[in-house]
């Protein structure tokens, strides 16, 4: 299986991709939308739109502090402008909408969202806790479900690797968002968080399917030895397993056997997401793009990162044990 035989190169690629993603996010940053910072977002659609500068000047007259104007297309296809300001009260909202709608022909406020800074903060705090909770429960469940998998690595390893792969899958769409924010001014909002949560679910499922096959193949290709020892009057039964095939071959076969499933599932998901991207309208476009990136990353990583990593870890562990034996 290519993924196992070329595991060193694949793992180096993964490390490079992850480092690049982290650097991109760190350097370019993420443009936080009003969902996080609090503030107001007003979308005004026009038959004939004024220039961005005109609107900027008009908004500046209101002296709201920092504000930004971005060009966009409204959902029914009219050209529109997105005006981002601080959290507006009712009076200011009315003033702003009458001001900007008069600038162009057929001006109409098509969307107004106002979020207090408290909600933004709460969203941030809670998202952190939620992700922490989800990650912990995944490690615990995988460790539990794969318990008794025995040689050569423990079930905790599978849980840990699931999380590492998960980080990889979440980093890539985040880095993409960071680039989009830098080049096109796309802001992260609640939808982005939703997309990441979906990627998270997808990634874990993908990894588990491959590991499930590894578990099954391990059970098929091993011989069982039972030894009974009596210790302080208690009979202790110890079960040890000997694999009839090399571990890397077992893992390789598992990847091979689940390859068709991995590709088919991601192809169907990608087809559905493409439909959402092209037909879903502007609101869900970024959302489907992020999911697409996540699904691609998830499929790739379940084949080319998860299994090579578990084999590499087993190899490293075996070497370490051998050293210990030699030292004795």
């Amino acid at each position, binding site marked *: 299986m290519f993924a196992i035989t070329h595991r060193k190169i694949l793992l180096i690629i993964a490390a490079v991709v992850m480092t690049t993603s982290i650097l991109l996010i760190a350097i370019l940053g993420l443009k936080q939308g009003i969902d996080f910072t609090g503030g107001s977002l007003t979308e005004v659609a026009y038959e004939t739109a004024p220039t961005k500068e005109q609107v900027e000047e008009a908004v500046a007259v209101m002296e709201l502090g920092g504000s930004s104007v971005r060009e966009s297309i409204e959902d*029914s296809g009219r050209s529109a402008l997105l005006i981002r300001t601080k959290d507006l009260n009712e009076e200011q909202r009315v003033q702003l909408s009458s001001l900007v709608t008069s600038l162009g022909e057929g001006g109409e406020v098509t969307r107004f969202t106002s979020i207090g800074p408290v909600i933004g903060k709460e*969203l941030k705090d*809670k998202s952190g806790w939620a992700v922490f909770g989800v990650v912990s429960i995944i490690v615990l469940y995988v460790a539990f479900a794969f318990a008794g998998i025995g040689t050569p690595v423990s079930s905790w390893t599978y849980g840990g690797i699931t999380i590492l792969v998960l980080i990889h899958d979440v980093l890539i769409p985040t880095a993409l968002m960071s680039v989009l924010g830098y080049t096109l001014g796309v802001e992260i909002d609640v939808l982005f968080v*939703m997309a990441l949560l*979906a990627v998270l679910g997808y990634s*874990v499922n993908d990894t588990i399917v491959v590991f499930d096959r590894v578990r099954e193949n391990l059970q098929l290709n091993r011989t069982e030895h039972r030894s009974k020892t009596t210790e302080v009057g208690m009979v202790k039964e110890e079960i040890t397993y000997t694999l009839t095939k090399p571990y890397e071959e077992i893992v390789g076969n598992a990847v091979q056997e689940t390859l068709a499933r991995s590709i088919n599932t991601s192809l169907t*998901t990608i087809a559905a997401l493409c439909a959402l991207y092209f037909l879903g309208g502007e609101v869900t476009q970024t959302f489907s793009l992020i999911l697409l990136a996540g699904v691609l990353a998830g499929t790739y990583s379940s084949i080319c990162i998860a299994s090579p990593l578990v084999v590499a870890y087993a190899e490293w562990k075996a070497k370490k044990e051998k050293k210990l034996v030699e030292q004795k």
Partner: protein
Amino acid sequence: MYVADTTGIDPLEVPELMNVLREVIDRRVNIFGVSEPIIQVERSSFVTENPTERLVVELPGVTDVSEAVAEIGRTPLLEFKLYSQNLEDQQVALESLGSLGSTSVAVVGDVAVDGEEISPDELPFVDTGLTGRYLETAQVTQQGPLNEYAIQISFNNEGKDLFAEITREHVGKQLGIFLDGVLLSAPVINEPIVGGTAVISGDFDLEEAQALSQNLSFGALPLPIELQSTQTIGASLGAGVLDHGIKAGVLGLSLVILFMISWYRLPGLVAGVSLISYITIMMALFQIIPVTLTAAGLAGFVLSLGMAVDANVLVFERMKEEFRNGSSSRAAAQSGFRRAWSAIRDGNITSLLSAIILFWFGTSLVKGFALVFGMGILVSMFSALVITRTLLVALPDVHMEKGGLLSLLLGSGLGSNKAKKKTN
């Protein structure tokens, strides 16, 4: 979205007060006949340091937010003001009235302005600090020689003292009673009133009097509320998104089913039926459980649809292996389910656990995602394990070696052709 100010209130009483608040707002919203308003009490969870009580009001079909906000927040403002001819006092009165923003003032009762409309500038009244905040009850009574309708109000203890003090100190002066900045009546204070009740008289008929007393009672909100955020989704936007969403959904689903059929043939068709029933069940559930299908819900739906497809794919791949190894199609289907079960189980349980945690910790949007996702997982497992299974097992039982059309239809994917050559 409103935030209730709960400072100085026994935490144990808060949930009850919030419910009263919800009812009050509900009645107010219902008065202006919005179709299907949704009013929910929400509590920010224990994760944040200061839990806040929230009231979320959703009004479908209301286009003018400012009007709706004004209506909801409309606590009839009852004020008591003293008549004064001092010019400086007039100045004060002018400012306080100006801030109310009332444009027309109708004068009723015994003020000597002959019922003409006057501008607030000319009203020589000063604030006393006594307002409807101190109101305890309001009810309709009849009084005077003509049995005119009036509203009898009684103050709480604090208001009673304040009222007594005002009336004691200003005997002989006129006390103006204002409702929403409109002067209703300005009786002369004949003697100090210590009982804590007052009568608002005006030119009311029965209906007006009842409406006013109701508004005053409803107006006494148990908790002060503050508008925290508003969100308008324009009708065109909502309709546009829905329209696009349906188009994208139909195309997406057709692509998925087409792919499944071309790859897995007859079982693929079975998967298609199972997926459509999955969507039907979900839609039915959305009708029963009041989930507004927001973008967050959409994300959960897309993801759980992916899981539903995946369960089918897992089973078919296993089934294909068994079929190629010589099992009959029915036996292959049975063992395909048996052997794919552990992967389906583990994948779905981790997802379900994640959904539960997200629902637990999340803000309302994350909760929406988690709820739809969680429901989707359960339904997708049902559709894959029950519907797909029943249909697959119901198909005619064939062996691969026998060949023929049915065998070709059941042997799925490119791999099966190769295998067929081998067995021949």
